[in-house]
């Protein structure tokens, strides 16, 4: 891969480069969601963040939510954010707006209590949206480099073919991309658990190795506390249907999508990497939560391999779906962008599929919508790690 591959996109005030120009309508608590929805109904160009956190989060969970929402607001694919609060919420729209503004983004706040109730608040929101729209239209694209981007890489609803086609093809892309100083995030810690020795060997930095051990041990602690056998309920019902028999099989298949390169950093959910290269983010294996975490981490595009199919998308980062087998690609053509199944019947090599992935990425970066964008699949979720009172 040539390190000088150029793309057109949006150069933000903080220096980051985005390939979309979203105007977000972001409720900072579940009670504000309906007004956010009403605003989106009248201003359909907005991107609605389906944030359903309650106001009564505390401690570490509250910090996690705050950090995730803030990083989504600061995302390079985002032009501006209209925050919707009630007035009594735990994470106030005002404080989040102040934080997001630090990255140079346009923000405005709608407060249901201050602004006179749902109808008046939504009218205010629509007027703000109109102004944002005009300003966003004036924001012209500039040239940047593909290597400036961060890719999130995910696998969901795996079958046995993923290991032969989609995952190693993505792995080839990942190796080439980090080689030109790009950044790639992988996640889903429970899946990494069963390949932990193989993964640990790829982490050279002692501090990062220790962080990896910590997130693995944390999971084991949870397993003991909740009396859950991480072997037993896994693989999930869907994976079994796809022929996957054990969690180890799933893990060794999954890790193929991360290529062979050194792992540079291990970070917590929703954080932005501080280094370039291949990064591990600690997330749950649930696709919606994992994608939300990787998006908050600044991923401009997400590659998602699947064997049984998944409709899941993400609001700020386009998700590119790659089928592990051709029957799936044909059956779920609404949801799948690329077919890696041509490797199975021998029509293509892994390298061919990797080239197709790159071509598709370049098209996506220029503005071509992925299937999940077309269908407006904008799933969003923040892990609930604490008790809600």
């Amino acid at each position, binding site marked *: 891969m040539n390190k000088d591959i150029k793309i057109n996109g949006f150069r933000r005030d903080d220096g980051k480069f985005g390939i979309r120009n979203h105007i977000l309508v972001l409720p900072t608590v579940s009670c504000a969601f309906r007004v956010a929805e009403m605003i989106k109904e009248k201003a359909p160009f907005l991107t609605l963040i389906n944030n359903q956190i309650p106001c009564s989060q505390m401690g570490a969970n509250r910090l996690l939510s705050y950090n995730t929402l803030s990083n989504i607001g600061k995302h390079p694919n985002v032009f501006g954010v209209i925050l919707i609060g009630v007035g009594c919420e735990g994470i106030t729209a005002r404080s989040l707006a102040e934080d997001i503004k630090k990255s140079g983004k346009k923000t405005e706040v709608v407060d249901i209590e201050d602004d006179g109730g749902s109808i008046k608040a939504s009218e205010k929101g629509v007027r703000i949206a109109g102004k944002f729209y005009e300003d966003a239209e004036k924001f012209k694209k500039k040239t940047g480099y593909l290597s400036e981007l961060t890719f999130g890489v995910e696998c969901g609803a795996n079958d046995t073919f993923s290991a032969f086609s989609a995952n190693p093809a993505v792995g080839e892309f990942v190796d080439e991309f980090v080689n030109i100083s790009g950044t790639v995030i992988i996640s889903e810690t429970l899946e990494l658990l*069963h390949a932990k020795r193989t993964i640990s060997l790829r982490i050279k930095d002692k501090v990062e190795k220790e962080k990896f051990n910590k997130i693995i041990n944390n999971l084991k602690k949870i397993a003991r506390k909740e009396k859950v056998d991480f072997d037993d309920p896994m693989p999930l019902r869907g994976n079994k249907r796809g022929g996957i028999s054990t969690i180890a099989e799933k893990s060794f298949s999954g890790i193929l999508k991360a290529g062979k390169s050194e792992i540079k950093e291990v970070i917590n959910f929703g954080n932005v990497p501080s280094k370039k290269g291949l990064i591990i983010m600690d997330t749950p294996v649930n696709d919606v939560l994992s994608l939300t975490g990787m998006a908050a981490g600044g991923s401009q595009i997400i590659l998602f391999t699947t064997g049984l199919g998944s409709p899941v998308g993400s609001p700020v980062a386009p998700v590119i779906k790659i089928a592990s087998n051709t029957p799936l690609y044909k059956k779920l053509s609404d949801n799948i962008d690329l077919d890696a199944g041509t490797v199975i019947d021998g029509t293509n090599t892994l390298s061919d599929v990797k080239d197709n992935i790159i071509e598709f990425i370049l098209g996506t970066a220029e503005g071509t919508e992925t299937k999940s964008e077309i269908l407006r699949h904008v799933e969003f979720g923040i892990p609930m790690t604490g008790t809600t009172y």
Partner: protein
Amino acid sequence: METKLEKLALVINKRDNVGTAKSQLDSGDKLIYNKGIIVVKEKIPFGYKFALKNIEIGDPIVKFGKKIGIATRHIKEGEMVHVHNISSYSIKGE
């Protein structure tokens, strides 16, 4: 009629003792592999695994050149390999 295994199934690593069916295999299908013939003993659905050699109860199931589980029953060459005859080893495994 005998067919080369590679036409109908996938083996990821030469140390593997399981192959993955590229399309459904039927009982009686004959696959040429490693200078021998594997006779498929039962229907293997699209994407499912089958044994490339006899596997004793307690033996590791090897895929990707790595242990992915252990046999909970004796498995004959050509039989399906899935949750009914293998299980995960403990998470202390890797």
